[in-house]
Structures are given as C-alpha cells and as structure tokens.
C-alpha cells in the first residue's frame, strides 16, 4: 500500500456499519423529533382557504396591536437601570474566593461536569460523568498532588502532580475561574460586541438577573470560514456575579445561533467545599496537607451526590 492510487482505493473502501442498537436509538429519537415537529408545522397545510385568509388577518392585526403596546410600554416606562459592563463582571469575580460551576449539555438533565474552585484552599475539585461512572479529581496545589476517586467502585488513587499541571490549575484559578470566555479584558478580540438582552423568554430563565450577550468573530480551524461565538451571561443584579452562562455559535453563512452548552454558577463557602472534599476523599483532606487517610467506605458516595 505504498502507492498513491492504492491508498485512494483503500480509502474508498473504508466502510463502517451501524449496530442494531445504534439504529434503534437513532430511529426512536428521530421518530420522536418528527412527531414533535409535525403538530407545529403540518396543520398549516391542512387549512382551507377561509381559515388561511381570515386567521391570517386576525394574526396580523394581533401582531400590530402587540407591537403598538410594546412601543407604548417602552416609551412610558421608567428609565432603565444602567447596564452592567464586562469590566464590572471581571471586578466582581476578583472579589470571589470560591466558585462551583455545573456544566450541562442540552440533552442531559444531570450536569456532565461540576467544578468546585477554591482560591482560599488552593484546590480544584472536578466531578465528571463518564460512561456510567463518576470520577472525582482533586487538584491540591499546596499538597502538590492529584487525588482521583471513581464511583461506584470507590477506588482512590493519589499521584504527584507535575509542576506544569499545577501551573495550569493556578492559571485557571486566576483567570476569573474559567467563567468568562477570556481570561482578562485585554484578550477580548476586536469586533466583539457586548449588549443587553431584552427578550422576555431569556429574562425569565433566572429571576433576579440581567442578561447580556458577548458576540465575537473567530476564524475557523478547519476552513476559511468565520465562526461567530456568543456567550450569554445572566448577571445577579445585586452582586454583578454570573449565575448562569450559555454558549452558542454559528458559521457566518448560518442564520441562527446554535445552542451548545450552559453552566449554572453558585458561590459556596470555604467550609462547604472543605466538607465536600472530606466526604468524598475522607477526613484527611480539605486542608493543604497531602496526607490521605484511607479509602472511604463503599456506598458513602461523593458529597456532590447530595447537592
């Protein structure tokens, strides 16, 4: 297979097939999507002329009325509070010592990953779901160790963390906890746009927050195309701290942004994180000392499970 034409033939023959289980999963989900879409999209085709003309007219009038009402409401309402700036968010995060981020994908109810970061303890705890098991990984900077625990087996490993890895952990801690897309304001690319979101649906997601979008262009790594990225952040109106963040992207040729992932952000106390580490790895942890005391009893589970 050392000739180009042989390679071409061999690549053309590269074939894989789906398993029956995969076929079942895909078809079931696709049928469900089809059924869900059908009631919304198909009735229009079944309407008669009378319905189309009269109902179309009614909907048009209702839309005009709604626009007029919204315009009045916007015109006469009290002046809006001053918008939060990106700088204020970075400044608010600088004052925070402990953060917990739960990452979700659109199709799962449970977080795919949770990260507890404590600048006070100089520790980061990851809880990651992987193929039916849960992995806890504790990066302990003062102890210079990485501790890993797997559930449900409950097995624990403790390894020395390399200087390079510890530097990455520290960098993450000092980069606004990884909550914002850019580690500092000066890294935000030219052409980025920061704007306040007024859509009622977005504002209803997290009560007591204001919603903002940061949109910036980024060159694709696979083609000449430009990708537009959107980071939506839900800011606590009292503290200017993010309570939720969402990520979207679209190619320059696409119309709508595609929703990718979202994070729910909370700000636990130092003692809460210490308690979580202790209940996960045993009483020897939660301090800067590397001394690890035994494997927790089976069934004890991670404290993250209780949250």
């Amino acid at each position: 297979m050392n000739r180009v034409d042989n390679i071409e033939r061999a690549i053309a023959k590269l074939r894989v097939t789906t398993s029956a289980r995969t076929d079942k999963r895909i078809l079931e989900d696709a049928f469900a999507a089809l059924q869900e879409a059908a009631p919304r999209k198909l009735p229009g085709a079944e309407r008669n002329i009378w319905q189309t003309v009269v109902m179309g007219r009614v909907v048009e009038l209702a839309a005009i009325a709604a626009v007029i009402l919204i315009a009045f409401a916007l015109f006469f309402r009290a002046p809006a509070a001053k918008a939060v700036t990106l700088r204020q968010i970075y400044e608010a995060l600088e004052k925070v010592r402990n953060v917990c981020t739960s990452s979700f994908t659109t199709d799962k109810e449970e977080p795919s990953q949770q990260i507890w970061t404590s600048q006070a303890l100089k520790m980061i705890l990851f809880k990651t779901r992987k193929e039916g098991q849960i992995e806890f990984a504790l990066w302990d900077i003062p102890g210079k160790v990485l501790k890993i625990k797997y559930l449900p087996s409950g097995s624990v490993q403790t390894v020395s963390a390399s200087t390079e890895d510890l530097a990455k952990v520290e960098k993450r801690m000092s980069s606004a906890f990884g909550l914002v897309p850019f580690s500092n304001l000066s890294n935000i690319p030219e052409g980025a746009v920061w704007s306040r979101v007024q859509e009622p649906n977005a504002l209803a997601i997290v009560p007591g927050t204001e919603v903002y979008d940061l949109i910036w262009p980024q060159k694709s790594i696979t083609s000449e195309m430009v990708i537009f990225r959107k980071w939506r952040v839900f800011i606590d109106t009292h503290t200017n701290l993010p309570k939720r963040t969402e990520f979207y992207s679209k190619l320059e040729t696409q119309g709508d942004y595609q929703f990718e992932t979202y994070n729910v952000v909370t700000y636990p106390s130092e003692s809460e994180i210490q308690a979580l580490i202790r209940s996960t790895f045993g009483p020897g942890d939660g301090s800067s000392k590397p001394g690890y005391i035994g494997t927790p009893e089976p069934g004890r589970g991670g404290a993250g499970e209780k949250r």
Partner: protein
Amino acid sequence: MLEDKRLIWRLKRGDSEALRLIYEKYKDGLLSIAASLLHDSYAAEDVLHDVFVSFAAGVGQLELRGSLRRYLIACIINRVRDKFRKSKHQVVELDEAEMIGSSLDEPEQVIMFSEESQSLANALSQLPLEQRETIILHLTGGMKFKEIANMQGLSISTVQGRYRYGLNKLRTIVDGELKK
C-alpha cells in the same frame, strides 16, 4: 434522486416510514465519513444521531436544492466541525480541556473499522482536518472537487491542493509504518 424527492414529500407529511427508508439508505455511508474524520466510533455515532434527529425535526422547513445525499453529507461535515470547534471552545477552556478531571492522557477510543483498514484509518487521523476532510469527501463520499469546493466555500484549486498534499502526507505516514 426522484425517489429521494418522493421520500422527502412523504416525510414532510409526517410519514415515519419515509424517515426509516432514508435512514437505511444513507446511514452507513454517512457513518463511514464521520468515523473516518473523527477517528472515534462513539463520536461518529453521536454525529449520525444528531444529524438524523435534526433532519427529522426540521424537515418541515427543508427546501432541498441539490441531492438529499449531498445535503446529509454537508450536515455530517458541519457536525464534525462543531465537534472540533467545541474542543477549542474558548481561550480559558483551552488549558482546562487538557486538564478536565484527571484525564491528562485520555486513551484514544478505538474505531470500528476492520483490522486491515485500521492502519489506514490511523494514518488518516494524523492528517490536518482540512486535508482529511477533502480526501474523505472525495473518496469515501464520492464528491467531485467542485462540489467539495462549493461546500467549503473554497476555490477548486485549493481543494485539489489539499487533496494532493494530504495524499502525499498519507503515503509518507503509511510507508513509515510499513518500514517499522
């Protein structure tokens, strides 16, 4: 092509049998493209899943200009690119991605090609994505350079160049493996 148009017509009216027929007709070809590009069987199946679920959900608005096959291949390519994009999602996460949990050295998942194709699939995975994409679309997807150029928004000469460079690099990798 006419058969596909008929299937789409039925599908737009909510006919799930039409969806099954389209899936059966194209699934293996599309999975082969995704698996060759991603070199990861789980990710390739996820891509196929997402493409068909989105296709079923959005078929009401679908205005097919070219062939259904080309359309589905384009959907697969977009999803594969999304996978790669997500891995380089944000500046902060670049470092984080390497550090996620404890998996600094995540073992590579084994692809589901037959044994004799495995070394070739391994070699393909070492090419830059844009070269790999061009080679796979041309050879596995059966697309002409002009069609690939249209899909990628590039000139034909750029696509041909990527194909040529990719193939030469692939030959070097395969030759190197044989000498070992």
